[in-house]
């Protein structure tokens, strides 16, 4: 099983080495609980049955003068724990963003790109800032996970994260593999439309707003989208993501399992679709 959406913001081994990180995690990302040893993240994965987790940094240099986990910190963790797959983050408003992305992939071994327009405050369809980064990601043949929908981060602005702004991107760059996070909630219909229209657009399951994970997942996947729509049209375009540590992976896994999906679809969501995104074509430097 692969978890496509993990923020290593609670890892004590990182905050111990970088005191600035605690400020970024609290005041920018908005997580106020005590750091935990890496053993907790690995244990949470094992308890949930997760073999691999994609860990995500976030470069907020322009807007917030910090990184909420840097590419270097992600690479450091991935060197030590084979269960972890590292993505890069670059700030699209940084003129050197594309070069930094190429460095992260080619030199640091990172295997995808994470963007969060709500926190990084850039326009998803900006020709000046965003498209050069998308184009470089397409050239590098790496997937791009993009936060869409509500941002729980105190400094996040959800209005910058409307998935419809990705229509032009998906249309113009069919070789760019885009993953819309959180089903784009509350703009689920728009995110669904993009995934139905564009085979290079996938959705991750990390939808959280109220109730238990099982409640949220059932409401979005069953009531709003329809399990038959997912099975017939999107069986290759939904990936499991937990959004740890906003929520426990074990409860997100249980939430998906509670849908009683056809076995092949459940396997695609839990493993196959993410494995395909990570593996190819040219899904990374290692």
């Amino acid at each position, binding site marked *: 099983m692969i978890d496509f959406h993990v923020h290593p913001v609670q890892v004590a081994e990182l905050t111990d080495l970088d005191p600035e990180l605690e400020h970024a995690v609290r005041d920018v*990302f*908005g*997580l*106020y*609980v005590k750091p*935990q*040893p890496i*053993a*907790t993240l690995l*244990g*949470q994965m*094992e*308890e949930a049955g997760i073999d691999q987790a994609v860990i995500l940094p976030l470069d907020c240099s322009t807007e917030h003068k910090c990184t909420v986990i840097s590419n270097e910190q992600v690479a450091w963790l991935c060197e030590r724990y084979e269960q972890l797959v590292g993505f890069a983050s670059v700030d699209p408003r940084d003129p050197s963003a594309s070069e930094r992305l190429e460095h992260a992939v080619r030199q640091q071994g990172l295997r995808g790109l994470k963007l969060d327009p709500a926190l990084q405050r850039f326009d998803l369809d900006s020709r000046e800032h965003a498209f050069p980064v998308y184009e470089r990601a397409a050239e590098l043949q790496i997937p791009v996970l993009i936060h869409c929908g509500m941002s*729980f981060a105190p400094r996040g602005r959800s209005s910058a994260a409307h998935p419809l702004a990705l229509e032009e991107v998906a249309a113009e760059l069919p070789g760019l593999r885009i993953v819309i996070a959180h089903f784009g909630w509350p703009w689920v219909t728009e995110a669904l439309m993009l995934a139905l229209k564009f085979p290079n657009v996938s959705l991750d399951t990390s939808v*959280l*707003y*109220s*109730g*238990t*994970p*099982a*409640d949220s997942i059932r409401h979005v996947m069953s009531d709003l989208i329809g399990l038959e729509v997912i099975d017939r049209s999107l069986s290759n375009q939904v990936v499991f993501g937990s959004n740890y*540590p*906003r*929520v*426990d992976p*074990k*409860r997100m896994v*249980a939430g998906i399992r*509670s849908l009683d999906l056809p076995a092949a679809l459940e396997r695609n969501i839990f493993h196959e679709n993410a494995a395909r995104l990570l593996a190819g074509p040219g899904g990374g430097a290692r």
Partner: protein
Amino acid sequence: MKSVLERIAIQTQHDTELINVGKLVRSAVESSAIADGVVYVTTLHTTTGITVNEELPDVEDDIVAMLRRLVPDAGPYRHARFLASDGQMAVNAPSHLRSALLGMQVALPLAGGELVMGQRQTIYFVELDGPLNREFVVHVLGNAG
């Protein structure tokens, strides 16, 4: 009267597990140099418990099964929402309720430097929402021997 308090951290491995902490408690008691008095073992969390029972795998299984039967994983719990003060989803109502059933503390007599316990009694730290790094305290009150 002397008072010595020691905080002890443990890394739990599973969502729910009973962990024998008797050696850790006895080590803290020995370090306190208090021989006669009372020992309080107290968890610092609201989704764990401290209890005493017999260390047999079947008894441990039955305790876990009882907790799950009395407090099912799914239910109409109100504690199921985003908790802004944590920045996390608060979706662990069953863990809190199971903790409420077990209790947060046990008190044990201390005499002649030894815990006064029955032959079959084991002190358990009970994880109810793991895996996590957890803490409990051993507070020894009494007089040196």
